[in-house]
């Protein structure tokens, strides 16, 4: 029972980590709170569903199409919608509020398009649904693959951002946006790259989620909420925080469902979230302020 819950929790947590990383990059570096993040994920779910059921493409191959598409589309959204808001915002606070409002609109647009195209029913496909014995617990192979992919993407990204020059540029913009131009960093480009990177991560998460769970056009907001919880938990802009926070959230959820009451899972996460917001709004890994 314990091992069983632990593994289920880690699998869920791996997905949450992946979902949250995109949001934390967008929020930390581009200063944009993207409330349409969850709906981007659901759009990617439907994309891989189409690729799988119509073109017979395995989700692993679908990653090669959907992830670059997520990057390009997010880049376009940034140029078209976000950049004018950044240009007119007098300070970071005003931009945050503006970006919340405008991505609300985006949320409804994406959700509406998905509803028109696919209807409101639960959709899904069967991929790699073979049982695997892990420490005496039976787990579906697709869930293990999801956890594996989440960890690989997450750790690679943390490594790239902390070890390469390109990653250092992005982190510089995140830490000191006023000073970055002084050392020759193009802030506008860095912000756009980060936003697009977040979109690519959302697309990755979407493909991974679609491998093992069913989805509807309207559940995007649940992903957004969970990603927000993880971002607040781990600290704004911290990838390591998002990875650990995501795994933690997955574990808490599964343990509440297994030992207290499945109906209280969401309530439990919101309670943790609200308490955390009040007690420590900078998160466990974030810088103050």
């Amino acid at each position, binding site marked *: 029972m314990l091992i069983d819950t632990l593994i289920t929790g880690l699998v869920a947590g791996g997905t949450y980590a992946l979902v949250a990383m995109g949001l934390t990059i967008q929020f930390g570096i581009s200063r944009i*709170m993207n409330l349409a993040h969850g709906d981007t994920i659901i759009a990617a779910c439907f994309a891989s569903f189409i690729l799988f059921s119509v073109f017979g493409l395995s989700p692993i191959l679908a990653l090669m199409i959907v992830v670059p598409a997520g990057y390009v589309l997010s880049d376009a959204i940034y140029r078209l*919608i976000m950049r*004018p*808001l950044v240009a*007119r*915002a*007098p*300070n970071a*606070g*005003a*931009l*945050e*509020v*503006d970006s*919340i*409002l*405008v991505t*609300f*609109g*985006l*949320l*409804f*647009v*994406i*959700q*509406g*398009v998905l*509803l*028109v195209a696919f209807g409101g029913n639960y959709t899904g496909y069967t991929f790699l649904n073979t049982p695997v014995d892990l420490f005496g617990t039976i787990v579906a192979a697709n869930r293990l693959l999801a956890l594996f992919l989440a960890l690989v993407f997450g750790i690679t990204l943390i490594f790239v951002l902390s070890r390469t020059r390109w990653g250092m540029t992005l982190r510089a913009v995140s830490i000191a946006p006023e000073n970055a131009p002084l050392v020759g960093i193009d802030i506008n480009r860095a912000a756009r790259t980060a936003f697009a990177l977040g979109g690519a991560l959302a697309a990755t998460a979407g493909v991974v989620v679609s491998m093992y769970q069913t989805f509807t056009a309207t559940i995007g*907001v649940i992903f957004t*909420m969970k990603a*927000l919880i993880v971002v*607040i938990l781990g600290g704004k802009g911290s990838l390591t925080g998002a990875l650990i926070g995501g795994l933690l959230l997955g574990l808490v959820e599964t343990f509440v469902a297994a030992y207290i*009451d499945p*109906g*209280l899972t*969401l*309530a439990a996460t*919101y*309670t943790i*979230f*609200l308490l955390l*917001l*009040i007690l420590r*709004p900078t998160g466990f890994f974030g810088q103050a302020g």
Partner: protein
Amino acid sequence: MSTTVAFILAAAALAGLAVAPLFLNAYGIGLLVGMTGYVVLASAWAMFSGPTRYVSLATVAFFGIGAYTVAVLSETLPYPLVLLCACAIGLTVALIVGLSTLRLAGIYFVIFTFGLAELIRQLVTWYEVNVTGTLGRYIFLPFEGIHIYWQLLALAAVTLLLSWWISRSRLGLALRAVGDDEVVAAHAGINVSRAKLMLFALSATIITLVGAIQAPRWVYVEPAIVFNPTISFLTLIMALLGGATRLWGPALGAVPLFLLFEWLSANFPNYFSIILGIFFICIVFFLPQGVLAKIEGLRRPAGKVPPEDKERSGAA
């Protein structure tokens, strides 16, 4: 225009609106009820969020609390007492929320209020399923649409009167200072926390009352209906369209948008969400100050932007 004339005009308009349903059929009265409901919601929302610029998404949390209080108590208590109970519960929740969120600024407040609405919905759902055993309740109150409309109209008048009074009082000035710069306001000797808390509680109580008064319209109530987050979004977009910092702004945004959304959901139910989203984006882009400020800007000679508007153009 002097204040007296404005008051006489407003009173005449109120009287006109009060007798209007006598000449309308049931559908027309239904429209009036929905419209007045959103006028109050948007005005009450703007009462707190306009001057302080704290974007609250907790509207539906309080709205739902009001509706649910009526659903639970309407058979055991007389109606005025039920309304009083709803007020008391809304006020208590608002004070708890206000006290605990005073330190949160900007984005964290938005997220908190959004999470709060979802949390309350989850808890009510869980309670109904596990403790009372049924999801959903019936409300049997001897009210027709016209009675609900008159109550809402009275509430709208009170809300606008309160907004007008607050904007002229020391409290309103204090809140505008908080919205401009909280640190400066605190240094100028304003009790920032108290001012924010008072307004948040007042605004939340009015929103709770709207939910309570409108509840008998549904007859059947369940969490998914009265805690529908779309209510928060619609309130927000209406107040923004009209201009959240003006007395008549929210009402001016609520009337056309309510009619538009009503028409859209009747004629294009499948595209409602897309059109709503595009509307939202356009308002943030082209009318960040609301329609009223835009009209005033057009009437002013070109190139002369008052410092207040220039400074605010980024904020909601």
